């Protein structure tokens, strides 16, 4: 039988789609797509390790020649500072964006650390002693700024590492996270200015001047302290390593450690070690930025692919529904046509001058058979949507509503329908077949769009969820369309009943079968302000 074959095909395709649903639908899991939460792959770990090994090898190779004088290269510091400024700014911007997406407090210090690094390079380069003529003050300022820079950066990484684990992933309001980004950026700008101003203007007589002179003096102690701090940051990152970001921050920390080691080792300017130290740190910072950028691009591509795949899957599912209702309509029309024609033939046999009762009897027999055939067809629709507990699971209908709205978004936009959603956040779960209930909602929304297509304005689709008194969940889909004629409101759920010129009239019949298969009810009523409201209730899942 034509219809059975298609119907079974339809259901099997659906159940396959249903099996794939838990993994792909719903909001995309942020855990799996963001650098700050995504666990590194084996390849990334190897690349990071290789980078560290290359840096170490370069360090070892430099050590014998570290003290070899090179002479003063005037362009080196400005070029280095410019590169560091650009790299740190971009890295900081990337991390701030991550923060505003995941709302993870931990990202704030590390993005701030990068921004501070970017800002401090400007005065740092400008106060470099030999750049604009050596003065004692500038020399002191440069030393102080160098140390503050190397102090702040590992501290920000330590702050990130300490914060990142004890987070309840509290959902910050979007506006608040933007505010936090702006506030910290502005704060850091002021802080960097203040540090520079204090470092350049204060004499040793003021308390801050005293502090700066402390920072300036005892260079060896300071370097040891900074080295320990960077080591501590690295160790902390290692012990709490989880994400791609953690991995590459470790690489940066190694770069910083190597820089500090070389500087401690050589102890003076303009030798191979002094230049090499800065180059290695620059290389490690650049690598991290490159990796972060390329990871972002790759993630974006992966995400785009998965969104496309999801869309295809959804469209295939909708297609199945179309094919199914078309074939159902075809099969239902056969017995109906036969019944109508036989009834007319019977009355004609009766109306003859001598009624031919044998023909009448044969015709009535045909009518009976056709009616049975129609009954069997309805039975097979029921069988198709009958309880199949394997596909049943506890569902949040609010999630389902959001999913279906996302799925019909393009259609809604194309028809300039505005959507109002009022979901009861304390909705109990229901036990149901996700794909079938999704089809019901898609059908109701599509009907609402069609009902409003002929009306100019306003076109509002309103979806509500609510708890009904004795443990039922109610979903209502209201439109501001042309409404349903009260005379036909009882017939709209009948198979083949349609008011659309291109409709098959199977949609609502199938919807009702599905809802009744879930021990629920589906009905229609006139809307409060015109239009119509379709509502269904499903029993709440008491197991939860």
């Amino acid at each position, binding site marked *: 039988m034509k219809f059975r074959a298609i119907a079974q095909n339809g259901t099997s395709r659906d159940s396959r789609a249903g099996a794939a649903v838990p993994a792909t639908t719903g909001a995309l899991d942020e855990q799996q797509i963001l650098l700050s939460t995504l666990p590194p792959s084996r390849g990334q770990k190897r690349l990071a390790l290789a980078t560290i090994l290359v840096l170490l090898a370069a360090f070892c190779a430099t050590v014998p020649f570290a003290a070899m004088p090179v002479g003063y290269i005037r362009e080196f510091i400005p070029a280095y500072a410019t590169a560091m400024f650009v790299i740190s700014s971009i890295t900081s911007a990337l991390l701030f964006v991550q923060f505003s997406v995941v709302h993870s407090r931990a990202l704030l210090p590390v993005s701030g650390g990068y921004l501070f690094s970017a800002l401090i390079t400007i005065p740092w380069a400008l106060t470099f002693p030999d750049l604009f003529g050596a003065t004692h003050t500038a020399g002191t300022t440069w030393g102080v700024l160098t140390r503050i820079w190397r102090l702040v950066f590992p501290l920000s990484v330590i702050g990130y590492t300490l914060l990142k684990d004890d987070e309840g992933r509290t959902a910050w309001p979007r506006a608040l996270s933007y505010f936090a980004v702006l506030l910290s950026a502005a704060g850091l700008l002021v802080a960097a200015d203040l540090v520079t101003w204090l470092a350049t203007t204060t004499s040793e007589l003021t308390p801050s001047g005293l502090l700066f002179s402390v920072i300036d003096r005892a260079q060896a102690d300071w370097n040891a302290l900074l080295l320990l701090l960077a080591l501590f940051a690295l160790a902390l990152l290692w012990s709490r390593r989880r994400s791609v970001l953690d991995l590459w921050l470790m690489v940066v920390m190694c770069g910083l450690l190597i820089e500090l080691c070389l500087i401690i080792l050589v102890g003076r300017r303009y030798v191979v070690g002094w230049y090499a130290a800065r180059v290695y740190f620059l290389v490690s910072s650049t690598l991290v930025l490159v990796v972060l950028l390329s990871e972002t691009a790759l993630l974006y591509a992966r995400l785009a692919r998965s969104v496309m795949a999801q869309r295809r899957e959804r469209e295939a599912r909708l297609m199945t529904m179309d094919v199914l209702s*078309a074939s159902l*309509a*075809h*099969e239902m*029309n*056969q*017995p*109906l*046509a*036969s*019944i*109508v*024609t*036989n009834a*007319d*033939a*019977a009355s*004609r*046999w009766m109306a*003859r001058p001598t009624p*031919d009762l044998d*023909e009448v009897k*044969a*015709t009535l027999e*045909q009518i009976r*058979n*056709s009616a049975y*055939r129609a009954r069997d067809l309805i039975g097979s629709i029921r069988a198709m949507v009958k309880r199949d507990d394997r596909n049943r699971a506890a569902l949040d209908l609010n999630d389902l509503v959001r999913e279906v709205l996302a799925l019909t978004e393009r259609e809604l936009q194309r028809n300039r329908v505005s959507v109002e959603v009022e979901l009861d956040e304390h909705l109990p779960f229901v036990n149901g077949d996700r794909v079938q209930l999704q089809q019901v909602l898609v059908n109701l929304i599509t009907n609402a769009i069609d009902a409003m297509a002929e009306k100019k304005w306003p076109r509002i689709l309103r979806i509500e969820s609510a708890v009904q008194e004795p443990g039922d969940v109610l979903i209502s889909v209201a439109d501001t369309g042309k409404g349903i004629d009260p005379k036909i409101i009882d017939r709209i759920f009948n198979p083949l009943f349609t008011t659309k010129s291109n409709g098959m009239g199977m949609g609502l019949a199938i919807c009702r079968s599905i809802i009744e298969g879930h021990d629920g009810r589906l009905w229609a009523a006139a809307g409060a302000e015109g239009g119509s409201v379709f509502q269904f209730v499903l029993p709440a899942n008491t197991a939860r």
Partner: protein
Amino acid sequence: MQHAPIISIVDDDESMRCAIKSLVTSLGFGAYTFASAEKFLQSQHLDHTSCVVTDLQMPGLNGVELQKSLLAQGRRIPIIFVTAFPEERLRARAIEAGALGFLSKPFESETLIKLIDKAIETGRKT
């Protein structure tokens, strides 16, 4: 008395064939039924048929293809199509090729009867 005009009914659905046959015989026409277009094309009743009532979608040759092969044989038998699944493209092709009528199942018997009467009338004139 002249022989009653013959109506040939082609439909893969048995109940539909019988129903149309019963209707047209109740009107006094002769009727033959065929389960497929091929069976009709091979039958000896081809020459006596005044009007064909055929389903559109059938396994094997469909209604439009039946119409085409009748035209190819030079037979200008009036054809009335009935279909459970109106397909605009096929409908347009059928009308273009000179179909007398195109009915969607379930159809009003009156409409079919009027079309058959029209077919018989045009047959008599030519």
